[in-house]
């Protein structure tokens, strides 16, 4: 029998993809094993990240060496990550739907092409540039003008009142994240609106609905699965965003936000900002604990992505 060399070569190279995913999870799990063993499960819901006395002598607890007083709990990161991403989704979803409708049906075809460049190029801007924009423009603007105004005007609504802060914080991070994920949602939704059967729209129009009512009552319900799938995908992106959040979040440590202006930190930003100080720990436990955060973040995003892809596959969208 002749061996199909070409096909075997293809299979061998193609297997790099799943192998790298498995390797990522396995390497992280092996490396963070001492930290997982030491921290156990209350790692996730205790609010205490403390590297301990870095100048003391290492002590042995539960069979692993740590610095005296070292504790690792990341509840503030879990809260910061989830709340900032959720807030970003709430802000991004309506605008993304509106922009998708505008570009697919709101303007004539010859204008839609050039105008969609705004959305497509917005998606291409590097995240660190978003962070720079947030740092240089949004933080002063929000901190000095908009947040005090919001806190005064809506002082009767919980979480909107209280100290307006300096501009670094939850709402600024959520705003930057929202601007980052709007183009992602909008681009996929735009294509799906174009793909919807014209018969459905015509049926609605012939019943006397105008175009917007057709969109709201017919097209959008039809695209519900797509919308949820794309939304979860964007959520995954927001959960894992590092640089933009790092530059505008205020990098809170062991602090739970009490209103939407308060400083936060997210898992991804925390990994990026804390490795330098974690390297000071001679027992290496701090680096392993960071690696445990990376593992938690990886598992969350993998779960989120699997859910989104399953939904999108059911809706037959690529």
């Amino acid at each position, binding site marked *: 029998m002749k061996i199909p*060399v070409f096909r075997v070569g293809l299979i061998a190279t193609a297997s790099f993809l799943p192998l790298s*995913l498995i390797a990522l999870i396995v390497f992280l799990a092996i490396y963070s094993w001492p930290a997982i063993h030491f921290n156990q499960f209350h790692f996730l819901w205790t609010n205490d990240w403390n590297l301990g006395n870095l100048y003391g002598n290492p002590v042995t607890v539960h069979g692993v060496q740590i610095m005296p007083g070292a504790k690792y709990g990341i509840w503030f990161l879990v809260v910061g990550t989830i709340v900032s991403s959720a807030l970003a989704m709430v802000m991004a979803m309506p605008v993304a739907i509106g922009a998708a409708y*505008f570009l697919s049906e709101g303007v004539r075809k010859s204008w839609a092409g050039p*105008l969609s460049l705004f959305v497509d190029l917005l998606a291409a*801007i590097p*995240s660190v540039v978003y*962070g720079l924009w947030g740092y240089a423009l949004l933080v002063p603007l929000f901190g000095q003008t908009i947040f005090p105004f919001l806190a005064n005007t809506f002082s009767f609504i919980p979480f909107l009142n209280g100290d307006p802060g300096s501009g670094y914080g939850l709402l600024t991070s959520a705003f930057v994240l929202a601007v980052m994920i709007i183009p992602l949602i909008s681009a996929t939704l735009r294509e799906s609106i174009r793909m919807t059967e014209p018969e459905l729209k015509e049926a609605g129009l012939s019943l006397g609905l105008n175009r917007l*009512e057709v969109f709201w009552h017919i097209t959008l319900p039809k695209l519900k699965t797509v919308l949820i799938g794309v939304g979860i995908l964007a959520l995954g992106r927001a959960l*894992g965003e590092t640089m933009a959040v790092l530059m505008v979040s205020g990098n809170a440590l062991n602090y739970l936000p009490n209103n939407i202006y308060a400083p936060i930190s997210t898992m991804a930003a925390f990994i990026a900002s804390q490795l330098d100080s974690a390297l000071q720990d001679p027992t290496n436990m701090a680096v392993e604990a960071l690696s445990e955060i990376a593992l938690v973040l990886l598992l969350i995003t993998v779960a989120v992505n699997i859910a989104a892809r399953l939904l999108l596959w059911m809706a037959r969208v690529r």
Partner: protein
Amino acid sequence: MAIRAIERSVSVRASTKGFKVSLSRRVMTAFAWMFVLFSFLFVAAMFISIIGDVLIHAWPALTPKLLTDITNGIGGGLKNAIEGTMVMSVGALLLAAPIGIASGIYLSEHGHGGAGKMLRFLSDVLVGIPSIVLGYVGYITMVIYLGWQFSVAAGIITLTVMLLPYIARSTELAMANIPLAVREAGYGLGAGEGRVVLRILLPGAAPAIMTGLFYAVALSMGETAPLLYTAGWSNYMWNGHFTKEPIGYLTYVIWTFINEPFAESHMLAFAAAFLITAGVLILILIGRWLLVRGQRRMGAYR
């Protein structure tokens, strides 16, 4: 003006169709139109605001010194960072393109069975993994375990893992757009699978694959998080070693120098942001143009 146009269209619709549209419906439609218009204007305004902010701040710093000097602690030029960004993007592309394109070919030609579906699913999941996690895994495996220290090779390999799924999926879509009849014609003339793929399908899909590659390079240029703990940072030009030798890159300048208390450092950060944004957007636009031109020249299979 836009609002007047909306009102006119609503009233014309109501008066000429011969039936009455209730006031609440008209008001709701007008509000919805305003919201739709606002959404688009918001997106456009954000884009212009980002580009404008970077351009205005970077303008005074855009001097030839950027291209001729290397960075020192707080200022100087960006020669080393520009070189580093290019080395790593090109390196990652050279590694990721063959593997990614081969995976894409496999997905489109044999990806209809269970194994192909699984592979496609996993590569979609791989796209969603946060880049900082990739960087951290690169750190614990290559920088620490293999002892490469902060190095060019660690940065390139981390970027490669990030780019692979993008290239694979864009190649797959490009190949899948070629009709079955083209493949049948090739096999009918007695060509083997390798010849059909390499001589017939790949040239036909080349414009779309190239667009995917341009997007991938743009993506790798703009990344910071995976490089922080793999490539490190260096104030000097790259000396050609792949391991044990850190390298500078533009995105690092942006986020470190903006935190320095000096105006010169801030200007350098904005200059780096301008260069990287301009580079990314130009690559994306070239990619789109190639696709349009290729389809016009060779004709798309549709």
